[in-house]
């Protein structure tokens, strides 16, 4: 009964947010196009034959960067910016006195945006295969499903990290500057610019202890058919979610005590 109610709330939220996102479809298409950084990186890697040093073929590397593009498309998070603006402008106040945590709204916004983004990402992939026909492959169903799960877990990790940072708004007001600090390790250690396997061994061992390689590198390797420790990767993703969720709950509960409802 309770889960049915929650399901209905989330479903309605998703439905409404999807209608809202469709109003911004052109903007979302542009966002999707702006996420083609992995293709630039692919170009740099192949033109300089950098992949030979890590024993990955051209085809496998191009599949990796295509998958990195896809994973990024469906795990990109901007909750810190939305929450910061809403918090500073007092827009979060009406949501705080509703029997649903306001972060559910942001969560639904992100999911709805991903659904809206999907066709644009498929079109970009279509053009990618036209220019790189040798990279075309069809992953088996099991791997595809595991990759979808892993991409969703990656989204959850990023959503939780940014939500924790967003809650710092209750203390600092400008939490997005802290997020910018996190952007640097996310960019370099997540596998967006280079597969993590290309890092020196001693650096890699440290990187794998952080949540970053599980954001892009692991799901992209899994989907592209590159070497990936499936059970280890999924376990680490779940572990990070279990670590981050209580931290988010604690910081949320302490933060709302500090809330001053500015601007309202």
């Amino acid at each position, binding site marked *: 009964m309770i889960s049915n109610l929650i399901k209905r709330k989330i479903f309605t939220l998703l439905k409404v947010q999807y209608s809202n996102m469709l*109003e911004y479809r052109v903007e979302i298409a542009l966002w999707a196009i702006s996420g083609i950084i992995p293709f630039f990186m692919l170009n740099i890697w192949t033109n300089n034959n950098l992949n030979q040093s890590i024993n990955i073929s051209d085809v496998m590397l191009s599949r990796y960067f295509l998958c990195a593009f896809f994973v990024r498309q469906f795990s990109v998070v901007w909750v810190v910016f939305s929450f910061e603006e809403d918090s500073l402008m007092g*827009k979060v*106040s*009406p949501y705080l*006195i509703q029997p649903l945590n306001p972060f559910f709204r942001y969560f639904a916004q992100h999911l709805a945006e991903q659904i809206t983004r999907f066709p644009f990402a498929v079109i970009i992939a279509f053009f990618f295969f036209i220019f790189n026909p040798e990279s075309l492959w069809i992953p088996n169903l099991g791997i595809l499903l595991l990759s979808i799960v892993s991409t969703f877990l990656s989204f959850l990790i990023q959503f939780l990290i940014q939500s924790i940072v967003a809650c710092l708004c209750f203390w600092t007001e400008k939490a997005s500057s802290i997020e910018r600090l996190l952007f640097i390790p996310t960019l370099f250690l997540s596998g967006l610019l280079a597969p993590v396997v290309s890092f020196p061994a001693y650096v890699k061992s440290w990187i794998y202890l952080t949540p970053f390689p599980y954001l892009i590198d692991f799901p992209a390797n899994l989907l592209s058919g590159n070497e990936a420790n499936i059970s280890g990767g999924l376990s680490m993703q779940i572990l990070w979610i279990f670590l981050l969720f209580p931290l988010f709950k604690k910081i949320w509960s302490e933060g709302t005590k500090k809330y001053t409802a500015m601007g*309202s």
Partner: protein
Amino acid sequence: MVKNIIDVRNLSKSFDISSKKPGLKGTIKHFFRRQTKSLKVIKDISFEIKEGEIVGFLGANGAGKTTILKMLCGLIYPSKGSISVSGYLPFRRRENFLKNITLIMGQKQQLIWDLPPIESFYLNASIYDLDKFEAKKRIKKLSEMLEIDDELFIPVRKLSLGQRMKSELLAALIHEPNILFLDEPTLGLDINAQRNLRKFLKKYNKETNATICLTSHYMKDITSLCKRVICVHEGAISYDGKLDLLLKKLSPVKEILIVCRSEEDAIKLENYGFTVKNKNKNELTIKIENNSITSSLKTILNNFDIEDLFINEPPIDEIIGKVLIKKDYDI
């Protein structure tokens, strides 16, 4: 015996405010050594509100009215004291408490800007666990009461301020709360929209026996809705009681303009013993205490040949204005 639905005891709230001196020197000093001070915006206030009451919170800008409402609905955490609303501690924001209350802020909106209001209504209905049938019924009922049937399907951004405010009200009332916190609900609305909103609130209160706590700078909102007012001055309560008692206290006399048929009558009336404010030929303005107005008028009409008379009520804004700048009113 009507029970208290809101009980506030020795409530205080302080905010940490940082201050900066002007100029480059001030900016550099502020960068290295930020000076903050604790500002007590609510000072040890206590009051109760009964179920079904409509109470107006009056005060100048920054007096603390909105802060009180924010603490009552659980939006901000009190620094000291206790609050009980419908038996709950508001700040804990228990689901059953949140389902019982609503907060409407004149300047803030919860409707989704690019979608028609109906989408936000169904979203709120599902947040408050209403099934689709019940939601439809309530939307129909409230939209009829608010007279906004046609606007339900137009994107919010295309609605006028008045239509938006009505839609905000519908969104905030879809779960039929029994305590309403209204922070300047008529802000920016035209006269007709203000009147319609007041009419709606009166009807809602009558039909549901909802308790309403209201702040407004429009005195008409207060006089037409609230029998009781709580005046807040610099974070403390300067008056808590009936509005008409306050008005009587602050304006104990009425001015009456009397037009006599002849100048002789006007002279006789001038010397009859009333306090005369001014006289011009056969017209004179006298001041009569509120409690003797009927008997005085009877005397005048029986003893003098009167052509016309006008009773001038002092402007309510002026009277209330006096309250906003005074610390204490002992009625």
